């Protein structure tokens, strides 16, 4: 057995699973300290289906706690950014494009030092140890407790980041070190930003992870604890302490991953219909397609591995206006006031939920309160919702192939059984706890993102080398060797460079090695 827990901003959901079968599922409120919410969720599981804690082989947790801490700019550590790249890069120092209040919230300090690589692996400059020691002394004098180290082209060669980390660890015992090549991909400012954010969250991560471990242990569970990452794969507790930033997008990812397990469809569009919005993402072979553009978090440009999600303002609380011949749904919503303002709950506002109840698609509140609604209006509103959602699904498609649709979330009752283009809508059981299920079934992965010089006739050999490296990384992260497969592959030639310089991205994923 294993347990999946999703700690969201509002709800903490938990599921007890055997393999891919859900044995118990509960929804509780998230608490300010996170841990007591988890304790009550575990109690809830125990009450629903008594289990022997000793038989639990793994606990997987997805949480939005760290991204929320950044957005609210609270509990962030005094942080320094060390960049290895002089004499290049001096024009735009670290945090140059950050909102000022956030730089203040982390007491951000920058150090530009020598080092870095060219695209082809040559050194821009050698590492200057005296320069780094002087920087370390200045950090100590200013109370820096966490350091982000970013070297130019470290995704191609990480040697300078590793050497600088070794030196700073000796000079600044007890200070946390975050290395950019383990966090982001090519794109210096964006990768550096992600690394600085990670550094600023390190102390909070240690605190929260200890709390999570304690509450799980408190329930008598001795199994290892994992946290879900942005890409749907797992990291162990030790990694989570060092890389809290890797949890940032685990919410939508887990809901999509849960949808694929519940429905048994591994390449599909997932529509998560909430109270205010519908979020549409695409799963390719069971993993969310990632956004190709820079993602801004709390006003900072990053290149996190984030799922590509498109949202529209249609949810269970969306306001419905107009007549049968010209109806609108959303984008405004009654939100959390649904249970007081919707007609079926005795309120005075016509919402999408009222339409679903009137159409017999849902049993919520008092159906008698919507019996008077014009049939034509109800039909028109449902058609509007179906057309708008179908349009978003269509936009998310990457090929002309038909794409099945899996609907999850409380508002998925609003969707028809079939969308335009004949796409069938799957509506799996347990759709309300898809997040926790997604956390519970996460796998482990390894990724390579580098510029390779592809000599004539060597293309296949180079690509094989990249694939093998990704597989090796997945195994190193804890995957069962035989289960690892390549789930994502991308090859982009770089113009104006000789030797067919090509940026190759490969992601390999396998099952977590646990007894079950």
């Amino acid at each position, binding site marked *: 057995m294993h347990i999946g827990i999703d700690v969201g901003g509002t709800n903490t959901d938990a599921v007890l699973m055997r393999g891919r079968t859900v044995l118990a599922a509960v929804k509780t409120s998230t608490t300010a300290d996170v841990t007591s919410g988890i304790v009550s969720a575990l109690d809830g599981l125990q009450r629903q289906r008594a289990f022997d804690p000793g038989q639990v082989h793994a606990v997987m947790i997805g949480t939005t706690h760290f991204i929320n801490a950044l957005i609210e700019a609270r509990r962030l550590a005094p942080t320094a950014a060390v960049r290895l790249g002089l004499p290049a*890069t*001096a024009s735009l120092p670290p945090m140059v494009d950050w909102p000022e209040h956030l730089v203040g919230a982390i007491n951000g300090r920058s150090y530009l030092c020598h080092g870095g690589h060219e*695209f082809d692996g040559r050194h*821009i400059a050698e590492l200057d140890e005296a320069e780094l020691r002087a920087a370390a002394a200045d950090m100590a004098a200013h109370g820096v407790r966490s350091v982000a180290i970013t070297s130019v082209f470290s995704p191609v060669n990480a040697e300078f980041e590793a050497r600088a980390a070794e030196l700073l660890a000796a000079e600044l015992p007890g200070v946390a070190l975050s290395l950019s090549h383990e966090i982001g991909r090519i794109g210096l400012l964006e990768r550096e930003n992600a690394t600085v954010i990670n550094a600023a969250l390190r102390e909070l991560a240690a605190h929260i992870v200890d709390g999570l471990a304690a509450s799980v242990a408190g329930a008598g569970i001795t199994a290892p604890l994992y946290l879900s990452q942005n890409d749907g794969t797992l990291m162990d507790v030790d990694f989570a302490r060092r890389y809290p930033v890797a949890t940032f997008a685990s919410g939508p990812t887990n809901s999509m991953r849960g949808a694929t397990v519940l429905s048994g469809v591994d390449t599909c569009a997932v529509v998560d219909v909430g109270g205010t919005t519908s979020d549409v993402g695409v799963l390719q072979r069971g993993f969310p397609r990632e956004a190709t553009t820079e993602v801004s978090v709390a006003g900072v440009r990053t290149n996190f591995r984030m799922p590509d999600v498109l949202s529209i303002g249609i949810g269970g609380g969306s306001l419905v206006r107009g007549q049968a011949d010209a109806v609108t749904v959303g984008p405004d919503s009654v939100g959390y006031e649904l249970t007081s303002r919707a007609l079926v709950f005795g309120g005075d506002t016509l919402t999408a939920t009222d339409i679903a109840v009137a159409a017999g698609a849902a049993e919520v509140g008092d159906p008698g309160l919507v019996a008077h609604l014009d049939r034509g209006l109800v039909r028109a509103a449902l058609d509007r919702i179906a057309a708008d959602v179908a349009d978003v699904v269509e936009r998310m498609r990457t090929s002309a192939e038909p794409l099945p649709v899996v609907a999850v979330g409380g508002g998925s009752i609003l969707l028809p059984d079939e969308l335009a283009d004949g796409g069938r809508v799957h509506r799996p059981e347990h759709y309300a706890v898809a997040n926790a299920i997604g956390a519970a079934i996460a796998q482990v992965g390894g990724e390579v993102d580098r510029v390779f010089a592809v000599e004539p006739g060597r293309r296949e050999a180079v690509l094989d080398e990249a694939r093998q490296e990704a597989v090796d990384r997945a195994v190193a992260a804890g995957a069962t060797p035989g289960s690892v497969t390549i789930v994502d592959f991308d090859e*982009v*030639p*770089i113009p104006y460079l000789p030797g*067919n310089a090509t940026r190759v991205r490969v992601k390999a994923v396998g099952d977590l090695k646990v007894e079950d």
Partner: protein
Amino acid sequence: MSWTLTEEHLADLARGAALLGTGGGGDPHVGQLLVRQAIREHGPVLVLDPTEVADDALVIPTAQMGAPTVVFEKLPAGTEPVAALRALEYHLDRTADATMPIECGGINSMIPLLVGALTGLPVVDADGMGRAFPELQMETFSVYGVPGSPMAIAGEGGETVVIDTRADNARMEWLARGVTVRLGGVAHIAEYAMSGADVRRTAIPRTLSLALSVGRAIREARQANTDPVARLAEVLADTLYGHLRVLFRGKVVDVERRTEAGFARGRARVAAMGGATGQLELVFQNEHLVALVDGEVRCVVPDLVCVLDAEQAEPITTESLRYGQRVTVVGISTPELMRSPQALATFGPAAFGLPYAFRPVEELVPA
């Protein structure tokens, strides 16, 4: 008319420069940050109308050359374009009175502004491409007899190289490309030094102003919830780029890319939606070169083929084109200076190996 460029102009200028980049020219984002930093530290930049440059003034254009992907990772030291300019001044034994863009599309709209902010030199409101092109000889300067040589190239370590191939601008491009690779894939350059009189004779005038007003028009139309493309057409009507034609609206259904001789070449297809029929095909080499609708040429280089996001009219680069995007493809006419027989020989369809004769977009697609 001359004007002063401040930090507030940069976002609009970058958006307009991306549009004039016709899918290439490099993302102006890094360039925008560079200029913003320099303006914050050194103050605003004087943008000089070409009519206000003295006949015998020395204008030295500055630019970045190399792979956009490298620029994202190896940011400049910031001193390189000024170092290139100084090296060329030293070589010529003359001091520059102004700098100028060689390319108003993409990141190279920004580099001379960085130089202007750092040195206090004015920046001439003109350029030598009137858009973005992949090679240094593809310049109206070159077409109308201004040699690119001598040219100076600078790296981040303060090192400079001077290349002099006399009148052979294509050979200058070839040698400079080799030096750029040795410098790590990106370098900054100063070239096509010329007199004020030559600027007026060979440059496309007021293209920085054009980029700014294009970017501003798109933003203001969005804010007012009006059609950005219609607003764009109105703004362009009063410029040398007088005709905007909507070539197609639809959805990207296929993108094919490959690298050949160091260029990102490829094709994309856009299909009509909502019951309409027809298909648009784009051919690109870093920049969009031609748009065909149902096999017929509707807009061809040097006229501008611009792919815009259908709702926000945000320019889309060839690298970020992907299946499913809703796009509006527009063709924009270019100034006569870019359409003469000599100009077409240098950067018309034949220069890119395309089997089409040039015809102006306003003739191919009547209003």
